[in-house]
């Protein structure tokens, strides 16, 4: 341990380290954002467990739904897997997405957020950079889950391009949805409450969508819910991308869903961010 530095050493060496007052030029928005992206990626490196745990639920759902209900839902487990995998990919991203809110809230409760706010920096970079860093998380998880799907017999008609397109699209979707968790992270009292909120919100949202079944057999009111659910449009787009059947209309609706999330939650988050200093 290096705690044995004698007091006198500190007293001698500190002045030397403090004589230089040269302050570099304030970094621009891009550099600031990139620094926060780098920080988010370092966290992934230091805490790989969080990545592993993010695979578990999607993998479990894939296995349970395919082999337990698949036959009943789609006639054969193979057919159901073709239907299910795109939904699972969306779900994978959604389940990791809430970590955005948890880590922001941890930053606030632990105090480092105050340090960031006491710096003269481009402030949205704190939130944007974290979201971009999470892109690495999504990519890793999507690759793993897709590989599992391929292993089980998932055959995307859209080929490699379709899968790459899916990963790209889901990055956009997660970036937009992440603002919802930023807002939650800024409002809620503790990381635990963000976690609790996520289970209350996410499960209904995932089930009230077309991830597991097409909405045709659902009651009318539920179909309305399913059709306004942004997750539904994301899943439809991913089905189109992986299947190589994406229509312009499907893509448009998916982009509208992303845009809607962004337009609502990004300004809300920035408002809450500023309100934090007003309190």
């Amino acid at each position, binding site marked *: *341990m*290096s*705690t*044995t*530095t004698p*007091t006198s*050493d*500190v*007293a001698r*060496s*500190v*002045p*030397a*380290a*403090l*004589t*230089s*007052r*040269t*302050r*570099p*030029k*304030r*970094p621009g928005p891009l*550099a*600031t954002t990139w*620094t926060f992206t*780098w*920080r988010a990626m*370092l*966290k992934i490196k*230091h*805490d790989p467990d969080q990545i592993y745990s993010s695979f578990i639920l999607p993998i479990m759902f894939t296995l349970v739904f395919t082999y337990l209900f698949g036959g009943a839902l789609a006639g054969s487990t193979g057919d159901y897997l073709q239907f299910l995998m795109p939904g699972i990919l969306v779900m994978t991203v959604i389940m990791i997405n809430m970590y955005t809110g948890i880590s922001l809230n941890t*930053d606030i409760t*632990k*105090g*480092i957020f*105050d*340090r*960031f*706010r*006491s*710096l*003269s*920096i481009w402030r949205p970079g704190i939130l944007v950079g974290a979201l971009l860093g999470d892109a690495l998380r999504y990519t890793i998880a999507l690759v793993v889950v897709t590989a599992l799907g391929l292993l089980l017999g998932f055959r995307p008609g859209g080929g490699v391009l379709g899968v790459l397109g899916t990963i790209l699209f889901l990055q956009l979707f997660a970036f937009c949805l992440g603002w919802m968790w930023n807002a939650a992270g800024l409002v809620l009292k503790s990381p635990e409450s963000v976690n609790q909120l996520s289970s209350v919100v996410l499960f209904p949202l995932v089930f009230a969508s077309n991830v597991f079944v097409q909405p045709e057999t659902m009651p009318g009111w539920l179909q309305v819910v399913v059709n306004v659910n942004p997750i539904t449009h994301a899943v439809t787009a991913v089905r189109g991308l992986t299947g190589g059947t994406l229509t312009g209309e499907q893509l448009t609706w998916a982009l509208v869903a992303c845009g809607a999330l962004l337009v609502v939650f990004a300004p809300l988050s920035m408002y809450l961010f500023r309100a934090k*200093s*007003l*309190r």
Partner: protein
Amino acid sequence: MTVVEPAIETSGLVKVFGETRAVDGVDLVVPAGGVYGFLGPNGAGKTTTIRMLATLVRPDAGTARVLGHDLVREPDEIRARMSLTGQYASVDEQLTGAENLILLGRLLGFSKTQAAARADELLDVFGLTEAAGKQVKDYSGGMRRRLDIAASVVVTPDLLFLDEPTTGLDPRARNQVWDVIRALVAAGTTVLLTTQYLEEADRLADRVAVIDRGRIVAEGTSGDLKRSVGSGTVHVRLSDPERRQEAERVLSGVIGGEVKPGAEPNALSVASSDLERVGSALVELSRAGIGVTGYRLDEPSLDEVFFALTGHPADVDEKGEESAA
């Protein structure tokens, strides 16, 4: 900008949380340079005041100029020259010590290599080189504190806020933090430091403001504060314990007030700050042939000051030392 401008000047700062008037009309002038101590018990409003001055919380009323800039209108100008080390370590526990400092360096605008070099330099100076690659969550309290302060001086600030920098540290770690503070002051930084430790304010601070229930109840040098409370104490030691009663009469005759016997049979003490009278009393003793082997003048402790100012004791887990003159 003139050098004589105070580092901080506030007028009627107020912050209310629901029913609690956490800061209730604070007027402060913190001169540039040196250490300014902000002393008060738990819940007095120290942290809230600092968070307002560090542009993290907007005041509900009042105005403040920090480093010559208006707190509410020009927060970014203030942020560019100020650093804050909060009451609870404001470093990233998941990152290593080195990564934390590089992160700050990058956010201040250093290039990757400059930031890494500066991080190495600071880790070395703060005795953290061996722990540089360890995640901060595995650091001891003292290491964390040092890293936290290092993170605040990646670029030496003109003004540094330190919120209870030594709370929970062992005496050695505390001494290290004090050394760092002295070095910063020598480098020209103004340090505003909050503390619950009367001794700390006494030792480090050039000026002290005592805050209680959101209000400043006293301000000045710690000497001013002690004098404002009145008397110190004179301790006298006799060569012959037998003559203590006699000496007691002489002392009360010259100085007045109650003369108390000390713990040892040859010791006496009496409250007084009047040096002239103390001098005459000593002369009287020698005239009466009462041998004096030693005497000591004690200033009042800040503990006593606090009690006298607020009517209640400072609610702290460490007693301010009686200053031995």
